[in-house]
């Protein structure tokens, strides 16, 4: 048998023939375009997304939307205190959601409270994400003792309830927006670290990482440019859930009186203020801030659930 008898050895001309059949896709064929198309298939998720945008818009533009600045003493009158929803003030203004014990318009107070609650949630979510992401990536990439050390710290962290960690930290640090953000980051970074590590461990074994090593790319480049983008999908999902839980956690802490000072009233503080009036029938002071908090958290969670469905099975495969 000569070599020419073996199949598949004809030296064909290497013209780019039928193989090029996969068409060059139009502009919408980016991963983001496909992602968007899949997301809008669920009406509930679209509704939740619109609600979330409205809530965020209301929070961002609160100073322009709110009928009164509830913390400007010149605009608030104690004589208007504890009015029920729909009551009209002495200067003819209607309090659609009633007023609280200090005579503040509850609708305005909720808008300002949302501002604080959302910024605490987003800030702590972002910082925790970055910290957890870096720790998780380093643990997965380097493995060995580094991984053992980092992941045991994560386990330790996860074995304690988040509220407990935050309570202890706030008891030490005191009140303040910056302090509650620190407390929430410390309480939540471990979730991100664990998520990133598990997906980075899978990605790290894939051949494209080996190929990148064979191209002589540096470690940092491989970790952050090649592995990280492939781990983003689960990270985004955990990010939404953890942001919602950070908002709830902040409300809990403020309700317990260890979160934010009264000068920076979040939804939790509003609920806490109104709680004292619940038994006397003035339900609205705690009820409406509670509804606002509930809607915010539900909207974020619904968006997060949809993201999880869309991103899994993975995009761009």
């Amino acid at each position, binding site marked *: *048998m*000569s070599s020419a008898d073996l199949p598949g050895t004809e030296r064909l001309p290497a013209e780019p023939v039928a193989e090029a059949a996969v068409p060059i896709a139009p502009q919408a064929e980016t991963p983001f375009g496909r992602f968007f198309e899949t997301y809008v298939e669920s009406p509930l998720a679209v509704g939740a997304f619109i609600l979330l945008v409205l809530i965020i818009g209301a929070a961002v533009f609160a100073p322009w939307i709110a009928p009164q600045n509830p913390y400007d003493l010149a605009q608030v009158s104690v004589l208007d205190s504890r009015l029920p929803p729909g009551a009209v003030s002495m200067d003819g203004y209607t309090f659609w959601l009633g007023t609280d014990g200090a005579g503040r318009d509850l609708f305005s107070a909720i808008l300002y409270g949302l501002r604080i609650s959302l910024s605490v949630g987003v800030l702590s979510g972002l910082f925790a994400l970055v910290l957890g992401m870096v720790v998780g990536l380093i643990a997965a990439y380097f493995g060995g003792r580094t991984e053992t050390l980092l992941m045991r710290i994560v386990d330790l962290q996860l074995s304690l309830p988040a509220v407990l960690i935050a309570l202890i930290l706030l008891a030490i640090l005191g009140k303040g927006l910056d302090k509650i953000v620190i407390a929430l980051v410390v309480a939540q970074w471990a979730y991100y670290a664990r998520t990133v590590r598990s997906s980075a461990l899978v990605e790290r074994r894939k051949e494209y990482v080996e190929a990148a090593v*064979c191209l002589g790319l540096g470690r940092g480049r491989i970790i952050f440019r090649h592995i990280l983008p492939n781990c983003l999908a689960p990270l985004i999902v955990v990010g939404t859930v953890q942001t919602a839980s950070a908002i709830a956690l902040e409300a809990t802490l403020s309700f317990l009186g260890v979160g934010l000072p009264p000068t920076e009233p979040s939804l939790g503080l509003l609920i806490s203020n109104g709680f004292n009036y619940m038994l006397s029938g003035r339900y609205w002071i705690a009820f409406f801030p509670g509804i606002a908090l509930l809607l915010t958290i539900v909207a974020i969670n619904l968006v997060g659930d949809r993201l999880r469905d869309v991103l899994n099975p993975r995009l761009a495969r």
Partner: protein
Amino acid sequence: MTAVLEVRGLKTHFFTRAGVIKAVDGVDFSLERGEILGLVGESGSGKTVTGFSLLGLVDPPGRIVEGSIRLAGTELVGLAEEAMRRQRGRKIAMIFQDPMMTLNPVLRVDTQMIEAITTHVDISKAAAREKARAALAMVGIPSPDERLKSYPHQFSGGMRQRVAIAIALLNEPDVIIADEPTTALDVTIQAQILAEVQKLAAATGTAFVWITHDLAVVAGLADRLLVMYAGRIVESGPVDEVLASPAHPYTHGLIGSVPSQTRRGQKLRQIPGMTPSLLSLPQGCAFKTRCPRADAACDVMPGLEPVAPGREVRCWHPHPTTPLAAAS
């Protein structure tokens, strides 16, 4: 001609709990500019580990215990990791088996190609992009400008392997190691890629080490053939001569187990037995338990001896025979 790659006495061993696995146990070969060397053998014969050893990418518990790898005058064995990293992708590159897996799914092709250049050469992004475009055109990808902006999932398997080859060629390396790069492709695409590689080797002077278990591939592609068995080279020589008249019984058996049109209806002749575990190799010649020619002489490991000009065989009973004659 001078050799761009010289491997002498390469030994890569894996130190496992069960014992030392001698995956590569004394391999010598050299490679000239533009030469295509076929490296064949069954699974577990050490061909892939040889490839990874050349790149300095043997993972623990394995390591290169002995030998020398000289790439264009630089000794790679014992080179510090950072210096080795600068060789990879620049002087020596690799193409993998599964083109679906070797491109990062979330990065555009241009991003991946440009970073492969700028990691090693200090040039502007625009110049790197131009080089990337030229490389895509060179491997026969139509409309490279548009293709640069595509994501890997927008390419077919054969196209992706062309992209992978283009990436390997970007920095004009001296040697490209190809680990069964056409195994996952269908035969027509495989033939195109092989023809392309032959043209590229001639045009750029890049030498290839083509690792495969498919004799049909090396028959049409390679200039020279190395047959590996249990971590050692058992036969080497010009590809046509080795395939036409294999001297080692193992090479003989490998060729005999390829189905062929001229022997339709006949039973394929398998090599009896299995590749022995590398932990418990027989004393002497590792192939003797499966070899029809084995006798008492084979209890001593034979050396790699020349049998004809340019041909060497590791066997006490080297009969250059034609596989077909032996079959009848």
